[in-house]
């Protein structure tokens, strides 16, 4: 039997707010964080909806007690805010620690401004510092230094499944005895770059997104960060941490179908879920709830729905996409939805899939429509899929 992986810390910031409490409250009230873009400097401001966090970089820096924001990308600031909540550590303890973060945009929120400056003035001087944070490793090192984590430090970027994969790597490192305690998760800021990217692909909904609905038109982008502390049993004895739940299984596969689109039968998604169950030594009937990837694009929801139906057959668990609350937070999505999954389990709640009205013609499936309290969730599965066919599934179980 491989070593068990326990989750002992959680942190989150999204359009639902800057803490676990804000997140639970919004889920309970069915209050979405998606509204017309207000802060990002884009021609789509006030036009396209997104799950934007209602704090400026200056406000975020103040919340973090940073002397200056000059060197920090928004991606790093959001990451620091979430990571700080999740990581409690006494450096004197004899534990091997580590940090695996995920991001897809890195510091593009700053380098895109530098690039604009360069194009206008044909000179990069004056905004060089904005280029220094461009690469994905920057936000990770900022967060590691902020929390003083000095062990293994790395960054993963596999598009929209990135932070699920950070959790998978962290879990495997614990199981293989490479670390005792590791912080894992991801962060992505809303940027002009990604907004235009998804816009050119014509998969943005100009209204509030409708995951799994027959008339869904596309996704709303979001931004945010979430981190989880993973520990081995031995580590918990030394640190005195209490387990919130277990990361029981995980699976990563590639759909190998198309650069951006998912296969019609959701083969990659099917195999990822199947692997996660197998690794967790679980049966399909053990799953009480699925936090779906559910981006609300016509392609994803049909493909994912088909994969769920093919795997679970007549025993389709309750499922919902909480992207109708947070928007699609790209590399942060896997960790944000992992934290939400753990919060739902701990609070015995089922979060609704907001804005769902009609079932898809192709599949006779319906997500959770209203908020449910006092629901026993022993085992929860969370899906995250990304460009390049990357598919990841995670399974969380109650601790005995």
């Amino acid at each position: 039997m491989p070593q068990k992986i326990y989750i002992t810390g959680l942190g989150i910031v999204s359009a639902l707010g800057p803490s676990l409490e804000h997140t639970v409250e919004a889920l309970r009230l069915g209050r979405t964080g998606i509204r017309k873009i207000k802060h990002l400097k884009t021609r789509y401001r006030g036009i396209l909806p997104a799950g934007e966090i209602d704090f400026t970089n200056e406000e975020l820096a103040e919340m973090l007690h940073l002397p200056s924001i000059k060197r920090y990308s928004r991606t790093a600031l959001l990451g620091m805010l979430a990571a700080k909540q999740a990581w409690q550590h006494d450096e004197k303890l004899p534990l091997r620690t580590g940090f695996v973060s995920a991001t897809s945009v890195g510091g593009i929120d700053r380098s895109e401004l530098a690039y604009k400056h360069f194009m206008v003035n044909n000179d990069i001087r004056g905004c060089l510092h904005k280029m220094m944070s461009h690469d994905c490793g920057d936000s990770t090192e900022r967060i590691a230094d902020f929390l003083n984590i000095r062990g293994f430090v790395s960054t993963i970027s596999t598009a929209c499944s990135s932070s699920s994969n950070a959790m998978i790597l962290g879990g495997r490192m614990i199981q293989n005895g490479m670390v005792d305690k590791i912080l894992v998760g991801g962060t992505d800021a809303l940027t002009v770059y990604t907004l235009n990217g998804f816009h050119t692909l014509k998969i943005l909904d100009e209204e509030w997104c409708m995951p799994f609905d027959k008339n869904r038109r596309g996704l709303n982008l979001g931004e945010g960060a979430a981190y989880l502390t993973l520990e081995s049993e031995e580590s918990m004895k030394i640190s005195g941490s209490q387990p919130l739940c277990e990361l029981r299984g995980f699976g990563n596969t590639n759909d190998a179908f198309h650069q951006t689109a998912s296969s019609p039968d959701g083969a990659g998604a099917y195999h990822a879920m199947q692997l996660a169950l197998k690794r967790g030594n679980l049966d399909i009937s053990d799953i009480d709830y699925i936090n779906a990837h559910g981006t609300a694009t016509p392609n994803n929801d049909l493909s994912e729905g088909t994969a769920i139906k093919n795997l679970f057959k007549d025993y389709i668990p309750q499922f919902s996409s909480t992207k109708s609350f947070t928007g699609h937070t790209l590399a942060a999505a896997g960790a944000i939805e992992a934290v939400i999954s753990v919060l739902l389990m701990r609070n015995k709640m089922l979060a609704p899939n907001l804005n769902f009205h009609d079932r898809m013609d192709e599949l006779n499936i319906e997500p959770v429509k209203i908020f449910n309290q006092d629901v026993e969730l022993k085992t929860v599965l969370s899906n995250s899929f990304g460009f390049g066919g990357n598919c990841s599934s995670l399974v969380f179980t109650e601790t005995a």
Partner: protein
Amino acid sequence: MSTMEETIEKLKVQIIEQLNLEDVTPDEIDADAPLFDSDLGLDSIDALEIIVMLEREYGLKIQSKEEGQKIFYSLKTMAEFVTEKIA
């Protein structure tokens, strides 16, 4: 005012360039044959690329994928669309 043939030839060159069809010459593209599902190996990303090209070169906007599918059936249907819109 260019003829339909001229528009077709121009579109061929523009498509080869936009889609970076390195080894394809304009002569190899049959104006009447289906553009997609051909041995050019084009897919949905290429359809989006052609939409971008038509907008940039001709100022033409295609709103939906369904509309695009009809227009992009062949080089000829595309040329007809361009000719009609910019006439």
